[in-house]
């Protein structure tokens, strides 16, 4: 990948962040926003910029990067350009875990994330088992179908848990199932960031495994790789990234699908390059999507997951046509 493209990606992230801080439901003058960032100016403006917009943009950057890296890993290991945490039911599994934890009257984020993590890991295992039973873990279409089935099962499980919950929490949960960064706070950033750094660091260290597995199972085994073990570890890391995002921002689909393809289109070839380029692109993309979510119908909010889906579905269809 050429150097100027890296610079452009970095600039896109910076641009998205500046846009995310400068625009919102309330019109603020650029000078006032700048003053607020330096800790000066009007107290209300400072609160809006530093305690409402900044944590929200930070969470969008982190979640966007995490989803994109999760997608890049799944696509690489499964050799499938349609693999993505949302479409593979991984996010759905995470949601089941999170909802079960929340319904058990525990709102401690650590426990909700742990629940999401367990749910995501189970979903990955199920998807791969179903695909294998159907005769092809590396057949993109079978794998996708397995993902849809596991996702539908996850949805059903959530509906059953919610059926007996009070109406107000159902509405909240539905909102969350469509993905939203509206409740972002520094507290969320503080517990999501380390998990994402952990997952990303692991993927970075094992990037060579992704490259080897992308050659195909036989070739990888021929190169002396313990294929199953390496794949399992990578799936778990991808699940961790998806689960942390789901616990903080709900179900946001298609970021993990679009972004790695964009990274490859930009010329990223090796896993490390793809991971880094995906992280940057995902961060910029989700930040802009969230900006649209909070400004298109202001003062009302749109679920950010709906916006990423509106962009992602046509993209998915194009990709699907291409692999046939």
């Amino acid at each position, binding site marked *: 990948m050429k150097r100027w493209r890296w610079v452009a990606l970095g600039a896109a992230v910076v641009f998205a962040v500046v846009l995310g801080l400068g625009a919102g439901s309330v019109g603020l003058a650029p000078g006032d926003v700048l003053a607020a960032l330096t800790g000066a100016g009007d107290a*209300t403006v400072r609160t*809006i910029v530093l305690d409402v917009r900044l944590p929200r943009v930070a969470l969008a950057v982190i979640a966007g990067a995490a989803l994109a890296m999760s997608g890049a890993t799944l696509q690489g290991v499964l050799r499938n350009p349609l693999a993505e945490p949302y479409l593979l039911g991984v996010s759905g599994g995470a949601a089941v875990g999170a909802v079960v934890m929340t319904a058990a009257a525990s709102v401690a984020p650590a426990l909700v994330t742990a629940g999401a993590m367990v749910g995501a890991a189970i979903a990955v295992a199920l998807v791969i088992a179903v695909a294998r039973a159907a005769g092809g873990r590396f057949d993109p279409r079978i794998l996708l179908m397995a993902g849809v089935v596991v996702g539908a099962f996850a949805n059903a499980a959530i509906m059953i848990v919610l059926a007996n919950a009070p109406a107000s929490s159902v509405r*909240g949960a539905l909102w969350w199932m469509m993905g939203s960064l509206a409740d972002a706070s520094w507290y969320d950033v503080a517990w999501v960031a380390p998990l994402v750094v952990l997952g990303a660091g692991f993927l970075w260290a094992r990037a060579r495994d992704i490259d080897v597995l992308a050659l195909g199972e036989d070739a990888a085994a021929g190169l002396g790789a313990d294929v199953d073990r390496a794949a399992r570890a990578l799936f778990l890391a991808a699940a961790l990234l998806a689960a942390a995002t789901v616990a903080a921002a709900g179900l946001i689909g298609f970021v993990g699908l679009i972004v790695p393809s964009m990274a490859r289109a930009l010329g990223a070839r090796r896993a490390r390059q793809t991971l880094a380029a995906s992280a940057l692109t995902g961060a910029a993309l989700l930040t802009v999507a969230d900006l649209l979510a909070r400004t298109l119908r202001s*003062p*009302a909010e749109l679920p950010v997951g709906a916006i990423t889906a509106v962009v992602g579905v046509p993209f998915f269809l194009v990709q699907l046509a291409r692999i046939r």
Partner: protein
Amino acid sequence: MHSYRFVSFRTAFRTAFGAAFSAALLLCVTACRDAADDRARANGIVDDFGDTLALASPPQRIVSLNPATTELVFALGAGSRLVGRSRWDTYPDSARLVPDLGDGMRPNVEVVLASRADLVLLYASGENRSARDALRRSGVATLAQRFDRIAEFGPAVVQLGRVLGDTMRAHTVRDSVYASLERARVLVEGRPRPRVVWPLWLSPLLAAGRGSFLTDLLVIAGAENIFADIDAPSPQVTFEEIVRRDPDIVLAGPVQAAELRAEPRWRALRAVREGRIAIYDTTLVGRPGVRLGEAALHLASVLHPSAGTGK
């Protein structure tokens, strides 16, 4: 050697002093906060989220994100201090002049902050907890209230009056509402009590249950709710169950009554076949607010046409 010991001594001293100072500061901060909490508790201002509210002076810029509290703020004479409302708060008419800040559930915190409110009134529902957290973190006082039953209305009014700085007026409002409710009760006393179904929504089919002030209103207006045995305020019920419980009267708004008459399956209900759909004014009945008394009188006259209007 000597100087080394000196430095380490000074460092140790500094550390100890720092620790002691921090501890003292922490103690003071906690103590001060406890004192504020105690004051608030002594004043009895603990809201329905269990948060304490300590205001140095009556709030001057109020945002009310709940139609029922917006009505109350006007009734308590503080309407001119409102700087924001939810899009659903359209009563009294002057409420429409207050800036619309969007939804009252999961409100847009940024917009609420920009109104520079010093007090935000919220509906105490789980969905509003994160907004409450964000506002309180930003130093904006919040009062979350929830009054679903008539018995909860009086305490809520008095609490709001205390927060707004006019308890006398709050007592007057409460007493006048309870007096109208009593008038409605007396009006229909001794009359046969029809069994009523009150469908709130047709698809999915939701009916008033025990947890709602609507059931309280029905009882005061001389009727019984056939779903008074279900705890939820607006439980989802099956059509079969309504047919089985065979109500004497179906209570419906004008639009809903037309829908009921148009839909064949409702003909299965004896009350509908015999034309006993009581039509009530949906703009008057629907919120547990200052017009509860009026609503009860209205329902009494709709359910017992021969009893007069009580006015």
